[in-house]
């Protein structure tokens, strides 16, 4: 039997960080006392009407543009009808066939649509499990009811659990950089559901999909998808067929339990919301949204790879951290021709990150001192190891003078000319004849022991390459 390929699409709910709810003036909140941010509108009293939140529309436009979506000149709201206590009107105002944002793309993954809707209230089931089954009562907190959401739906373009989690991270970073959401998975301001199916590799048809819910971290998202892919492969491997259903992933046990089957699926009886008029963004609104877009991770990553020659991992790391990326670019500018962007990237993502982690008080140095340091290392005025020692001082004293620090700390690199280093190397060879013999007899790895002694003796002031050269020279190799 052909290998079964994973086919995954994601549905992402992003809670917008607007000041007020989607259709009323209640403030958004998280963690407040229950039912304090409510009014007749979000409690669905008789006679109330929704009025759309303009800020939410602006945020949705920004998300749509960041995902390269086509923006609908006129989009409309629909009612999605279903009974549940967390849904006070017994319909959710959402968008259906004409969403505000149409087709787009983020990275290699196609976006089907992104639309505006309102969040449900929160139900708390009283009882041990925290789930409705077996609970003695359910309490409803309407603080969240009516919070603006943008739902982003992808095409089934993802081919693995890790890829799905990786792409979801990129999406979160993109939305975070727009400043339109807290995108916190644990608090539920970012919620990712996955549609998972498998098919014989090479096939273009789609298998029966299941929908996975409740994965409140990227790790759980990946684990949930992995578990579901395994389940589906097992079923098909045993000659069975996958049933269309909605599954709940329990991250503690790793279990998947069925929430509802296809037969139990709701008929939402969508119809155009008669209480609202169409959303028709003005040219000014579109222009403002466009102008407010920062350079987003995917674009920045592409630019770092193509223009600065960074490798993919470095580019992704920097692009995912806009502040770090700005800093990186400032150091690249300050260092000028003295070092290439890849070298700068190595310092910023590697040694600097490590130095910052080493102490709570550590801060990024100014761009110029770091640029000076990188230039000194490249020019072999200071060894890489010595450079790290200088950096440890720079993160505590952000605008220290690099040349002065090198001088003060005696870190100026030992050259091969003055004989001092050659002497230390000779002593080290003498101190470990066994290693010297191994090196002579062709065991290149044995050189490390002698290099280590030299580095210790020189307190890192020696250049590793030069030490290697001297050892081999003195051993007559």
């Amino acid at each position, binding site marked *: 039997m052909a290998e079964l390929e994973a086919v995954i699409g994601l549905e992402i709910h992003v809670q917008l960080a607007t000041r007020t709810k989607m259709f009323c*003036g209640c403030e958004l909140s998280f963690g407040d006392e229950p039912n304090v941010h409510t*009014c*007749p509108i979000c*409690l*669905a*009293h*008789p*006679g*109330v*009407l*929704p*009025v*759309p939140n303009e800020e939410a529309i602006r945020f949705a436009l920004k998300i749509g543009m960041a995902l390269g979506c086509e923006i609908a000149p006129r989009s409309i709201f629909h*009612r999605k*009808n279903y*009974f549940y*206590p967390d849904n*006070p*009107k*017994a*319909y959710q105002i959402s968008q259906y066939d004409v969403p505000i944002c149409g087709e787009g793309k983020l990275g290699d993954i196609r976006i089907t649509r992104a639309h505006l809707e309102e969040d449900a209230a929160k139900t708390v089931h009283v009882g041990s499990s925290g789930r409705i089954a077996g609970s003695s009562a*359910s309490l*409803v907190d309407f603080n969240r009811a009516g919070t603006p959401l943008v739902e982003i739906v992808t095409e089934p373009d993802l081919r693995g659990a890790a890829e799905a989690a990786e792409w979801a991270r990129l999406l979160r970073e993109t939305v975070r950089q727009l400043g339109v959401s807290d995108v916190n998975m644990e608090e539920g301001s970012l919620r990712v559901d996955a549609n998972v199916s498998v098919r014989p590799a090479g096939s273009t048809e789609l298998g029966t999909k299941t929908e996975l819910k409740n994965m409140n971290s990227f790790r759980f998202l990946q684990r949930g998808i992995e578990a579901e892919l395994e389940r589906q492969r097992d079923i098909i491997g045993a000659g069975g067929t996958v049933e269309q259903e909605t599954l709940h992933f329990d991250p503690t046990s790793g279990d998947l339990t069925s929430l509802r089957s296809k037969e139990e699926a709701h*008929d939402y*009886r*969508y*119809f155009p919301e*008669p*209480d*609202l*008029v169409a959303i028709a963004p003005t040219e000014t609104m579109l222009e403002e949204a466009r102008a407010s877009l920062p350079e987003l991770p995917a674009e920045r990553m592409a630019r770092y790879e193509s223009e600065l020659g960074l490798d993919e991992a470095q580019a992704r790391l920097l692009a995912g951290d806009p502040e770090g990326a700005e800093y990186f670019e400032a150091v690249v500018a300050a260092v000028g021709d003295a070092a290439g962007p890849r070298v700068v990237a190595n310092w910023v993502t590697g040694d600097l990150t490590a130095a910052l982690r080493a102490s709570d008080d550590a801060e990024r140095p100014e761009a110029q001192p770091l640029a000076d340091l990188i230039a000194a290392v490249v020019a072999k005025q200071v060894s890489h190891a010595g450079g790290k020692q200088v950096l440890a001082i720079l993160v505590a004293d952000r605008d220290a003078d690099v040349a002065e620090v090198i001088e003060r700390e005696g870190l100026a690199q030992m050259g091969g000319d003055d004989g001092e280093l050659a002497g230390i190397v000779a002593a080290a060879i003498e101190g470990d004849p066994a290693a010297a013999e191994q090196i002579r007899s062709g065991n290149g790895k044995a050189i490390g022991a002698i290099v280590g002694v030299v580095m210790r003796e020189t307190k890192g002031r020696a250049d590793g390459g030069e030490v290697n050269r001297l050892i081999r020279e003195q051993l007559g190799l």
Partner: protein
Amino acid sequence: MAELTDLTVAEAAAKIAAGEISADEYGDAWRAAAAADELNAYLWTAEHGGEGEPDWTGAGESAPEGEGESTPYGANPPAPADSGPLAGVPIAIKDIFTTQGIPTTAGSRILEGYRPPYTATAVNKLTAAGALVLGKTNMDEFAMGSSNENSGYGPVLNPWDRGRVPGGSSGGSAAAVAGGLAPAALGTDTGGSIRQPASLCGIVGLKPTYGAISRFGMIAFASSLDQCGPLTRDVTDAALLLGVMQGKDPRDSTSVGIEGGIELPSREDLAGLRFGVPRELGEAALDPGVRAVFEATVARIEELGGEIAEIALPNAEHGISAYYVIAPAEASSNLARYDGVRYGKRAGGDGDLIEMYEATRSEYFGAEVKRRIMLGTYALSSGYYDAYYGQAQKVRTRISQDFGAAFGEVDFVITPTSPSVAFGLGEKTADPMSMYLNDFFTVPMSLAGIPAIAIPAGLAAPEGAGADAPKLPVGFQIAAPAFAEQKLLEAAHALEGALGFAAAVGDDAPWKGGSRG
């Protein structure tokens, strides 16, 4: 001096403003009249509090919670302004409008005991203009009905003949005005719910353009059709109330208001105006007495200089069918919030959730409401949407286009308001279809969203009754293009003057105590 309650709203407001009559005495006269309601027109009435302010406690009700508190939606209770075009005028409010702290049921048992935490914009506009809330009027449950027999609180009686219905759904409002229990009333019209009861009760009823008056606080039946409007003794009062209530409301995205506002009408002739009579009217099912009054009114229009032309509304005959898909579809969604969870009545709370929903809705919704929820749910169901809701929306568009074409040729479209005079209580309750056909002439304008006014045009004996049977009022409907209310009111005012209905009825009018109980 004539009775205070004989004055129209415009007359009374002018006399109060001029100091000729006391607002207190005027208000007391109406409160006394409302308290003497024998028609079941009111579900709640204000009592006099002694300080020129009504007592909001109502009959046998305890004081509302939070009374006197100021809220983002206005004061509780809605306090009348000291001055304004309606200063001192009490107005009856259909129980479909929310009134903070005052019981509001929309005629349904499911909202029995419900006191809204906010007041409807239309009511706030009236009180801001100085009006007082006189009482809340009975109605068909959630405005679904044409006879007021679908009220959860018993039917309203027609003041002209208490064995007959007042029409619906604004039957309590119409009966209150016609029966001398209120100087004017608010109603709502979804497919004829202002115009038809106005017609059956011999008063004026105006359904403005959709969007002219805010729907905020108007309990929704069919959101794309519902519109608030006045029921009054004459066209001038209708203009006065419309002028006060119209306007864009930031709380209603679909409201737009009427550009330039509304002035009291003064026109007394119809010269240069063209009135279109639908060609299809000839074959419409219509009582002979109603047809005779319609034809006499057309002749009167010509005498006033108006020109009569034939127009075509070829799709209007499908209006009722489209209406009875669209309105129930929207209603099925609008009424889903009455689930027993947050407010109103709850039944069967001991079992599980679904059981509670079902028990609550089964017990407290009436038969007609249930019928329409089922119709609407079906029409929106997956697989049926295109055949029903989608198709009905197409018919609706066609009807709008028909009116658009007609208004290219004429200024107004005229029809009878209702195919018959008031019918007997219980006469049509067993046959929903014949009940629905009451709205045959009013539904097309609702679907098109255009304004239409019903004015009393004469009297006719019920079909099949003897020639000397007591005669009942017949309404005449004039429809105009969207937002052409001023022009509509001017024409209606001119015609009203020429018809002289109130003068012709004289002391036989129920508002003069002429009920044939």
